[in-house]
């Protein structure tokens, strides 16, 4: 490790380093759009790491949401009527395809997307 390398590493925040790792991981997956460049209401394929899982059993139907991040932005995948997480785990990679729309707070949401869970870049 060279001195300039050390200085550069000390100067960057751990979050930056993680974001860069995530971007590198997403770039290695075929045919996906980075979240920052997604166009609403247009069918797209995206990938990211699960940062947040939201479970809402109210209103009689079970809603599960997973927020993914890819180092550029975030997006929410929302499934209705699921009664178990079945493999959705923090840190897992999620590759999904669907039509994103804007959610209540402006975050993009994909409703019942087609998806595959893959090992994330960080959790082996």
């Amino acid at each position: 490790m060279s001195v300039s390398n050390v200085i550069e590493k000390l100067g960057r925040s751990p979050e930056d380093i993680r974001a860069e790792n995530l971007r590198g991981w997403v770039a290695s997956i075929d045919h996906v759009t980075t979240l920052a460049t997604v166009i609403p209401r247009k069918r797209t394929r995206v990938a990211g790491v699960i940062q947040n899982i939201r479970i809402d059993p109210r209103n009689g139907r079970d809603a599960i949401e997973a927020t993914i991040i890819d180092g550029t932005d975030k997006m929410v995948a929302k499934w209705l009527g699921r009664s178990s997480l079945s493999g959705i785990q923090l840190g897992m990679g999620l590759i999904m395809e669907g039509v994103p729309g804007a959610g209540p707070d402006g975050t993009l949401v994909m409703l019942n997307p087609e998806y595959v869970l893959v090992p994330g870049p960080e959790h082996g």
Partner: protein
Amino acid sequence: MSNAQAAFKRLVLGRPMSSGELEHTLLPKIIALPIFSSDALSSVAYATQEILLVLGLVGISALAHVAPIALAVGSLLSIVVISYRQTVRAYPSGGGAYIVAHENLGVFPGLLAASSLLIDYVLTVSVSVVAGVDAIVSASPGLHRFDVEIALLFVAFVAIANLRGVRESGTFFAIPTYGFILSMYVLIGTGFVRCLGGCPVAESAHLPLKPEVSALSLFILLKAFAAGTTALTGVEAISNGVPAFRYPQSKNAATTLAVLGTISISMFLGISWLSHLMHVRYLDEAKYLALTGHAERSVIAQIAFGVFHGGPIFYFIQIMTAGILILAANTAFADFPRLASILARDRFMPRQFMNRGDRLVFSNGIIILATLASLLIAVFQANLNHLIQLYLVGVFISFTLSQSGMVVHWKRTRERGWQRSAIINGFGAVMTAVVLTVVVITKFAGGAWIVVCAIPVLITLMRSINKHYDSVRNELAHPERRPLDRRPGNQHVIIVVPDVDAAVSRAIGYARSVRAADVVAIAADPAYSAPWHRLAPEIPLTVAPGGHPDITQVREFIHQKRAELSENDFLTVMVPEILESQHLIEVFRHPRTYRLKSGLIRDRGIQVLDIPLLRRQIDPKVDQAHEPARNYAFVLVSGVHNATLQALEYAETLRPVDLRAVSFGLDPEATQRLGDDWLRDRIPHPLEIEDSPFRDIGLSLVQYLRQFRPDGLDRVVTVVLPEFVVTKRRHQILHNQTALLVKRRLLFEPGIVTVSVPYHLSQS
């Protein structure tokens, strides 16, 4: 944490690593060998010396027995290495003595192995570091006076290296380990070559040895053998560390173990034989000092000095010896925290030991180990020969249990060729059991009794921790609990008034927004009556009798109020606080408030709500008693159980605009279970599980909460913390560590209030 603090921490400990980076710290064999073998190899530095020390008690004639004894120790070492190679193959996920004994022999043998190992690791650190300091003192006798200080410094050094994480230490540790191996072979080789033309004579060769024991008895021979078995310490390290190896893990670990055994045996035999040829004598430190007037050199130093007549190679050997010994302590620093975390997972040790720090290492275990080892060094005044008396008991208990466990393992699995494996492990177990008996008998009076007494104490402690956690788990899961009435009408509020100030005004605003059934205030000083009535005419203020702010009066008032309410009611005690600065010292500035809060938490049916306010955040132009329009409530949960449910019911009475349960994922399995339980029980509130990539719950929580832009006036965030209250105070340390950390972290966050909702466990 302030920026300066964070920068310092990063400089010393390195940048925080995200959980995923754990994978990348897998070790190639060439690096794994020095990491896991430094303990085993370094014992060569003092094993021969320990044999000579015992034989010297009989007199000069007995010293000739060093060679056969060394051969016996060498054979034992090879038996143990062969035996452990099987463990490594059978337990690719790490087969420490605890795991093997626990799985195959049962809970009690498992705990016996675990407590032996924990003690053994502490001694590994003390003994290795002290022996390392001896090597330095041998090269530079003037430092003799500072040996305790130097030893403590080295413990601190190794502890910091380990808090940084294992891989960077690994590259670093390779140098002294390989340097030591090289220097030992150069020493042995040169020594033998020089012996061809008449051996050089050691400086101690003419030292008069006064016989203290009349004749060479079997007991003395066994005692010398037991002393020499220190050469075996640390052999098991590789079996603990299989998961740290690169793939194929078992194969790589077994190869490394074989290499380790070969190097260790050859070095030990070479040094022992040279010590015999050169007539090295070794005395107790104090006796030597009395006899000669200067500090004694270690046996290795004497040999090296004789072979090289001092000079640069002598100093190189001393530096490398010191290096490997001090870094041998590293093996224990990797294993102690790992074992502690496994024990914590099995609920035999406090949960805090499961937490990895932000460098992906088990920080708590490292700190405890360093503390205990330093304590031993200080108590024994860095005397190697005294410390070594304590060693070995734990080592051989775990050897024996681990190998016996393997015999049962082979009988159970009956893999191809299991009989052969069982015989190898069985033979090893019998041999180490015999040596264990010898060690206990010959070393008992010298200090081994301390360990023999400490082991049952540790076992009892671990069992009682386990019993406690189990009973808590059963109680929490019990479905008998009646839900509390969660309408706002069941919420009652008492505001504690330490002073009529901005923080109290905020409490008034908060209390108004809750629409509680009734709100009252209690002050200690009658002078507050007038300003209070101007501020909140609708809230009656009671002045506690006694005049002076007295906690017992306030507490009594609260108890009276509680007694008037029905069981279904919540009673929130609001504690407003003005903080002068952003330092943790603030926590101790108001000892009365602190005592009141910690006392109230143990009283049934009372919830304590903290409203802290930083002095410099107060805007005098704003009405601080403004009623917040938006209150976001977050209940911090760890599982679906009674304490969580009660906290949710409580949070509902605060009339929040948004109420969610939040959990931070440190353990993927646990969060998965939490999510599925939540769906199964149809808990009528949303649950969010947020990743904490740097395993810092405090940081993740703060970042999460800041999304809601709390200002304390119009937008308030309420963090609801379910807490356990146990009947026995000494059990309290086993719980609520997360809640404590969160409260401390949120203290200085503007607009965030925390409320403790205690759940009282009866533990019938």
